């Protein structure tokens, strides 16, 4: 194209009329030879212009147009090629664009996907954090709610089966964990961990208690062979069982068994071999009192030291637990002693009839029963056995007493002339005195003691009374009967007043005595009055009635008879022993004798005063009679 332009410019400058000067100037001014573009143009046009003529320009023009056309055509052709390439390229670009869009899409998608992942990751990270927190909590929880290895080990016990002192804090911890989880469970009902822990702890504790129980068994076995001071561990072991009453009971049972055998061995030793160089107790078996007493003393001491040992064992237990088990264990330990003791005592009892000894034995048994009962309890075999033996001895005692009394009384003879109680009465009373003395010296008071006392008195006195009365049936004079009975009753009375609880018996004795005293008084007063001849006069005086006329006119009451009688009475007053019944002097008891005498004389005076009142009455016409006044008679008879 550029090649064409100067061509065009040139003609334009040639054709312009006015501007033509300028153009010519320009043309002239143009130094074409120096212009390379022109040179080049020249070079290009020169070959085509072969001749210069008028036509040359036209031809050249044509030729140039032709050439231009040709060139255009070629250019077009080339351009089409270019177009084709561009088209191709465009296609490629389009395709590429499409690919790019795809890629972008994909990238976008990936981007989205990544976002998701990121979210997930962050969620996971959060969860991880939560989980870590949880793990920490759980670790804390576990640390709090599970036992340490050391604790676990302690709970398993030592290799020798015993537990060490570490055991107890571990057990305590297991227990507190258990309690805490229980608490936890209470606050939220379905806390499975708490349940798990509880289950675990309860299993552990069960196992631990088992270990503990076995350990105690072992320790107790050792205890039974050597009487060592109790180690703190055992006391703690028992205390630890406070929540397992059954195990505690079993453990204590085992302990009791061990101690029981030990005590039994010791008892056998003391019986058959003696202790501390002393003689064996068995050598005393001929002396039931000492034998029984020594055995009981030993048993008492033994259960005393067993009690101390037990209290030491249980020293760390709460007091109510000690109270609950103490007596039972001691009762169990002493049970076997009771059996051996019983057999021994029963052996010594056979063939023993001596009442006082038997009663002393009863007292010893009673004494130890009251001593031992608070230690082992009333229901224990030992106390029961002692009570049984006491009852047995008491039965033997009473049957022996009855037999002895019977034996004495069957030999009772007829009263002698002296009307004093026969030997059998004294023997019976001596026997009664002996047993009552023993009772008195050992009596603890109380209703039982009184009842026993009454029974003793009855055992002797009732048959004695009967025998005395039977014996008196062999006497013929009522005076003899009364004197003899009085003498016997006096002996009985003087024995009874020495003892308590005899009021009723004394009353009976006194009432019986008063009956017999009355008989004697009546008999003696009658004897005095009849021996002096005053009886008929007295009788007439009593029956006399003034309508019958003066008393002196009645036969047997006439002045002469009365005078004789009064003389006779004076004689009696001078010698008051005259006319008296000599049996009365045989009343052994001075007080009774004097009482009988005094009252006899009172009766005599009373009778005399009636007679005297009639004698001094002028109506009865006793003149010149010298009758002593009642006062004189009373003074004389004093």
């Amino acid at each position: 194209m550029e090649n064409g332009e100067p061509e065009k410019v040139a003609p334009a400058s040639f054709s312009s009329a006015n501007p033509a000067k300028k153009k010519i100037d320009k043309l002239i001014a143009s130094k074409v030879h120096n212009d390379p573009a022109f040179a080049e143009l020249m070079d290009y046009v020169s070959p085509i212009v072969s001749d210069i003529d008028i036509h040359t320009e036209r031809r050249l023009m044509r030729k140039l147009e032709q050439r231009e056309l040709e060139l255009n055509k070629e250019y077009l052709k080339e351009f089409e090629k270019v177009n084709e390439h561009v088209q191709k390229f465009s296609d490629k670009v389009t395709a590429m664009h499409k690919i790019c869009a795809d890629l972008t899409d994909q990238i976008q998608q990936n981007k989205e996907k990544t976002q998701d992942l990121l979210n997930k990751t962050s969620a996971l990270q959060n969860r991880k954090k939560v989980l870590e927190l949880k793990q920490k909590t759980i670790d804390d929880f576990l640390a709090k709610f599970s036992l340490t290895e050391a604790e676990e080990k302690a709970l398993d016990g030592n290799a020798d089966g015993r537990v060490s002192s570490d055991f107890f804090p571990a057990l305590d911890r297991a227990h507190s964990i258990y309690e805490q989880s229980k608490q936890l469970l209470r606050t939220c009902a379905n806390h499975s961990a708490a349940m798990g822990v509880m289950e675990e702890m309860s299993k552990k504790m069960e196992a631990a208690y088992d270990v503990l129980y076995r350990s105690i068994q072992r320790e107790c076995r050792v205890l039974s062979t050597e009487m060592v001071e109790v180690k703190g561990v055992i006391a703690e072991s028992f205390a630890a069982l406070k929540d397992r009453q059954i195990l505690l009971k079993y453990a204590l049972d085992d302990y009791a068994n061990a101690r029981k055998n030990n005590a039994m061995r010791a008892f056998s030793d003391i019986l058959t071999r003696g202790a501390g160089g002393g003689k064996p107790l068995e050598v005393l078996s001929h002396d039931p009192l000492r034998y029984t007493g020594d055995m009981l003393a030993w048993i008492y001491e033994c259960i005393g030291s067993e009690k101390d040992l037990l209290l030491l064992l249980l020293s760390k237990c709460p007091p109510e637990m000690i109270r609950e088990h103490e007596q039972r264990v001691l009762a169990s330990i002493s049970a076997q002693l009771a059996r051996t003791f019983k057999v021994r005592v029963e052996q010594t009892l056979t063939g023993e009839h001596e009442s006082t000894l038997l009663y002393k034995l009863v007292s010893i048994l009673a004494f130890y029963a009251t001593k031992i009962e608070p230690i082992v309890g009333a229901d224990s075999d030992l106390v029961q056995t002692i009570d049984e033996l006491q009852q047995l001895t008491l039965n033997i005692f009473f049957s022996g007493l009855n037999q002895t009394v019977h034996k004495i009384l069957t030999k009772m003879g007829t009263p002698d002339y002296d009307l004093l109680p026969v030997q059998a009465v004294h023997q019976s009373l001596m026997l009664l005195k002996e047993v009552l003395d023993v009772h008195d010296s050992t009596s603890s008071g109380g209703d039982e003691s009184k009842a026993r006392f009454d029974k003793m008195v009855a055992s002797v006195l009732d048959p004695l009374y009967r025998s005395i009365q039977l014996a008196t049936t062999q006497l013929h004079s009522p005076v003899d009967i009364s004197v003899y009975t009085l003498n016997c009753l006096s002996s009985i009375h003087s024995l009874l007043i020495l003892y308590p609880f005899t009021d009723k018996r004394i009353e009976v004795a006194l009432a019986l005595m008063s009956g017999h005293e009355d008989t004697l008084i009546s008999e003696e007063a009658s004897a005095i009055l009849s021996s002096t001849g005053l009886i008929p006069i007295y009788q007439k005086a009593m029956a006399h009635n003034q309508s019958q006329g003066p008393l002196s006119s009645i036969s047997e009451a006439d002045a002469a008879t009365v005078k004789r009688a009064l003389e006779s009475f004076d004689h009696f007053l001078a010698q008051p022993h005259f006319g008296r019944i000599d049996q009365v002097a045989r009343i052994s008891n001075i007080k009774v004798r004097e009482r009988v005498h005094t009252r006899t004389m009172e009766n005599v005076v009373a009778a005399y005063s009636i007679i005297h009142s009639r004698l001094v009455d002028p109506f009865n016409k006793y003149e010149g009679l010298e009758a002593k006044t009642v006062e004189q008679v009373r003074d004389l008879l004093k």
Partner: protein
Amino acid sequence: MNREDGDDSFDYLFKVVLIGDMGVGKTCVVQRFRNGTFVDRQGTTIGVDFTMKSLIVDGKRVKLQIWDTGGQERFRTITQSYYRSANGIVLCYDITCKQSYESLERWIDDVSKFAAPNVVKVVVGTKADLESERIVQVEDGEQLQRRHGMLTFIETSAKENTNVDKTFYRLAETLKRQHDAGMSIESQIEGIRLNSGSTPVGGLWQKYESCCRY
């Protein structure tokens, strides 16, 4: 009441003696009165048995000393000693046994010989529950009571607890009233003590003169 026992819990003390043939049931009557019990087979009483029981009469405590005597012949002399100081006497016969009724004459004889003249007597027909075996009629008992000037006649059954308490109560009541009245009589009769502590002199002359009295 001149007896001074340690027991202050009574205002009056009277002695009551039960007599009658062996086996008429004196001990059963006493047991029923004393303990409220009945024991069918009582042993034979040897000599004298002694029991006490207090009653309230007219608001006063009356203590009865009851002497249950053995009915056997051999104890007759012994038991006589107790009549002398007795204030009351209960004569017993068995309504199914004629002999026991007839024997009463002898017992009454003893009483008049040894007991105080003012002693209160009661006649008791025992075993009233054995009506079907009755031999002694009620009239016989009443007749006896009137004849001997006794306080009363009662038929009793210790087994069925009929009239036992009534008998003793009646006796205690009479004794108390007699005693209250006797206090004044005592002062009238010069110096003679008609009380339970001593045998009244009257008792001893009777011994000599009983044959004349009846």
